[in-house]
């Protein structure tokens, strides 16, 4: 055994914690944590981005005709007028719920499925929260109201390869936000030593409650999904780490483990964690639960651990047992800027405008729309942005919730960011160096590629400096300098 062993099971009163950094932003989960998952009706159109995961873009499965004009439904003002490819009218393809619309050929990538019954219009540039615009397959709803039916199958007879093939076919990616294709992640080379699977249910971002509701409502599916992953990995130990502010989810999963009729020799237990941001980061949850630290620049499998999101585990169950592809997901719609908050089960590709309409509109004091959580999410200016596989929440925030937008001041060297950074970086010095145009010299202030943009440093900064963005710029400058040196 090359590693220190896991901590003792469910230590009484002593919750595991990660030792370095971390902050306690107001949770604001009370807005949605008690609301059961609600199914939203199918939208009139969905836009499925060809790239909503880590890896190569999905390949379109149809013969496309080049077109200059595009339907203005997804396009705003004069941006994104080019690059639209429409299907020939004669070729327009009828799809049903769950039907494959985009494939991936033996590459790191994910397949795409239509979430509605309808017609594929083609591929159009669509407003993207980060990229500005990005090609997406547009499917229009044709009003057919056929619901797909799924039957449970006995998954235990499948081999590892068959299980991975099913996960790949269902287009499952990490739903926590990174969007790494699940089949690639779970296909670990046999010579790598693994001993623990960690299911990440900490959901440390304020406001977000989608994982919480999934854990509370589908505990059996998650345990079953954990067993599927354990079988693929060929190991027996699984720890489900959940922040202690979700007692109902912890209880539900503990009951599901206790009442599991066939444990199949797997050792699954629930580990409550201290409530601290960013406990949901893979590095922090691994250190918290197993005391192991990932070396800089290496994968978590190098220390014998695979970390998977609980909601991804549930969709793996759906994919393997029900043959249900990933075409819908639970999204937390929260914030005081929308008439009604909800945990909505929406079709991937649904534009925000449909969700806003379904929930009764926004309020007068809406000040910011954020896709994702308040710490790491992206602010958007348009409601035509569609939901992607990695969208865990959409927040409609009021001025009261986000505070005034302020100009940032000079660094006063208070050192709060050093105490907040979970990776032991020096955001203050990186910021000062980047401002002085010396971003390339920032290696001395920490392995800046360790930064996963949790935003803890910027959260505590009294001068309101954009430290996350400074570090991002430093990363680029360091890379540039390295490349120059090599040439």
């Amino acid at each position, binding site marked *: 055994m090359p590693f220190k062993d896991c901590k003792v099971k469910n230590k009484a009163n002593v919750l595991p914690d990660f030792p370095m950094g971390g902050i306690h932003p107001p949770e604001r989960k009370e807005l949605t944590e008690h609301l059961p998952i609600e199914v939203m009706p199918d939208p009139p159109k969905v836009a499925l981005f060809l790239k909503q995961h880590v890896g190569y873009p999905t390949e379109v499965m149809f013969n496309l005709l080049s077109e200059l004009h595009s339907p203005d439904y997804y396009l705003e003002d004069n941006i994104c007028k080019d690059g639209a490819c429409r299907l020939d009218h004669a070729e327009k393809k009828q799809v049903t719920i769950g039907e494959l619309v985009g494939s991936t050929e033996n590459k790191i990538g994910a397949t795409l499925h239509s979430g509605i019954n309808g017609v594929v219009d083609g591929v159009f540039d669509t407003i993207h929260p980060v990229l500005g615009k990005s090609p997406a397959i547009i499917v229009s709803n044709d009003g057919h109201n056929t619901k797909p039916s799924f039957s449970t199958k006995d998954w235990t007879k499948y081999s590892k390869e068959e299980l991975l093939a099913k996960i790949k076919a269902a287009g499952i990616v990490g739903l926590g936000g990174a969007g790494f294709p699940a089949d690639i992640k779970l296909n670990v080379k046999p010579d790598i030593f693994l001993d623990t699977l960690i299911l990440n249910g900490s959901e440390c971002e304020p406001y977000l409650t989608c994982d919480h509701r999934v854990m509370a409502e589908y505990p059996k599916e998650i345990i079953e999904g954990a067993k599927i992953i354990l079988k693929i990995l060929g190991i027996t130990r699984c720890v489900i780490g959940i922040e202690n502010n979700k007692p109902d989810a912890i209880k539900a999963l503990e009951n599901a483990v206790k009442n599991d009729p066939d444990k199949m020799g797997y050792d699954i237990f629930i580990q409550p964690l201290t409530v601290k941001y960013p406990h949901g980061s893979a590095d922090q949850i691994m250190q918290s639960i197993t005391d192991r630290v990932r070396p800089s620049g290496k994968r978590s499998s190098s220390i014998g651990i695979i970390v998977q999101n609980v909601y991804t585990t549930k969709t793996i169950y759906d994919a393997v047992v029900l043959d249900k592809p990933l075409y819908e997901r639970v999204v937390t719609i929260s914030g005081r800027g929308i008439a009604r908050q909800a945990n909505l089960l929406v079709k991937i590709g649904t534009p925000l405008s449909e969700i806003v309409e379904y929930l009764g509109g926004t309020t007068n004091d809406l000040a910011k729309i*954020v896709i994702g959580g308040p710490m790491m999410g992206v*602010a958007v200016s348009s409601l035509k942005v569609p939901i992607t596989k990695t969208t865990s929440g959409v927040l409609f925030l009021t001025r009261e919730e986000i*505070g005034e937008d302020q100009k940032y001041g000079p660094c006063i*060297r208070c050192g709060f960011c050093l105490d907040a950074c*979970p990776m032991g970086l020096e955001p203050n010095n990186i910021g000062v160096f980047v401002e002085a145009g010396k971003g390339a010299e920032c290696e001395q202030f920490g392995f800046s590629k360790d930064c996963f943009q949790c*935003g803890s440093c910027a959260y505590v900064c009294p001068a309101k400096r954009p430290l996350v963005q400074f570090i991002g710029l430093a990363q680029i400058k360091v890379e540039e300098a390295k490349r120059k040196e090599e040439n």
Partner: protein
Amino acid sequence: MKSPTQIVERPFYKNLSVSFSPHARASVSTERIMWTVVACLMPSLILSMFVFGLQTLVITAVSVISCVLTETISQKLLKKPITIHDGSAVITGVLMAYVIPPGVPVWMPIPGAIMAIFITKIIMGGMGFNVFNPALMGRALLMASYPVAMTAGWVTPIKDLSLGRYFNAGVDAVSSATPLYVLKHYGINGLIEKFGSMSTMYFDFFFGFSPGCIGETSACVLLVGGLILLYKGYITWHIPVSVIVSTALFTWIFGGETWFSGNPILAVLSGGVILGAFFMATDYVTSPNERRGQLIFGAGIGALTVLIRLKGGYPEGVCYAILLMNPLVPALDQWFRPKRFSEGAL
């Protein structure tokens, strides 16, 4: 849920804020920290008005106003944004007044303010880039330029906290020597003789009824302010504790007739040790960021303070000790980096 009347249909969202992440920020701001420090310093000023007379208020006001004016004028001349609202110039003004004697002429803080704000801070690059503590640089200039006023302006404290004494006759300032001066030239027995008894001496030192600079005499009141800053999380214990412990330790070892016979309590309560430890050495800009660096920084201040007090020409050494440790801060920050996450990796 909001009432439906508040809901509006908005096809276009023109006034949305689209700033970058994080979208939540802690409520603490530079301004709030600075003004809290000013508030924590105020009790000392109030006490000094009773103990030394109203001229302490006048000197502090002159100091603050001249610091703020210097900052405004110099930033205007250099065409930089004016940042007086952040409160840092006010802190510098208050701290500079606190480390000059109560009996100096009222114009005295003005040259100090120009030194502190313009030379030490603004032309070094403004807030966040000064190497030396501005308030102490101001005092150092005054010590060098007006040594007579700065070493003779002591006022005998009046142990009467009732307002009535302001209306009585004969409250004129009486010149007196500071305890550290007495200690340096007449020894511990001379000091006890001056205060009457050992316990009266400690009582006077702790509550601020001994001669000294405007804001440094009352350990009690300064400790309350310092503890508020600690409780608020604006400073950590490392610098104050290491300054106080190392001052006490080195005084105990070297301060007496023989080794290990010095009086550590007297050393900590007298002079500007408490004020320096909690309010000057902890200045963010001129102190190290890393905990080990902070401990060494504080220990160095204590050691230099004792060295100057025992062997130097001045009876008091906190000011110069901090100024001597200030330029070491970049080096300390280089030597002691925070522990990186991956350093503990397998």
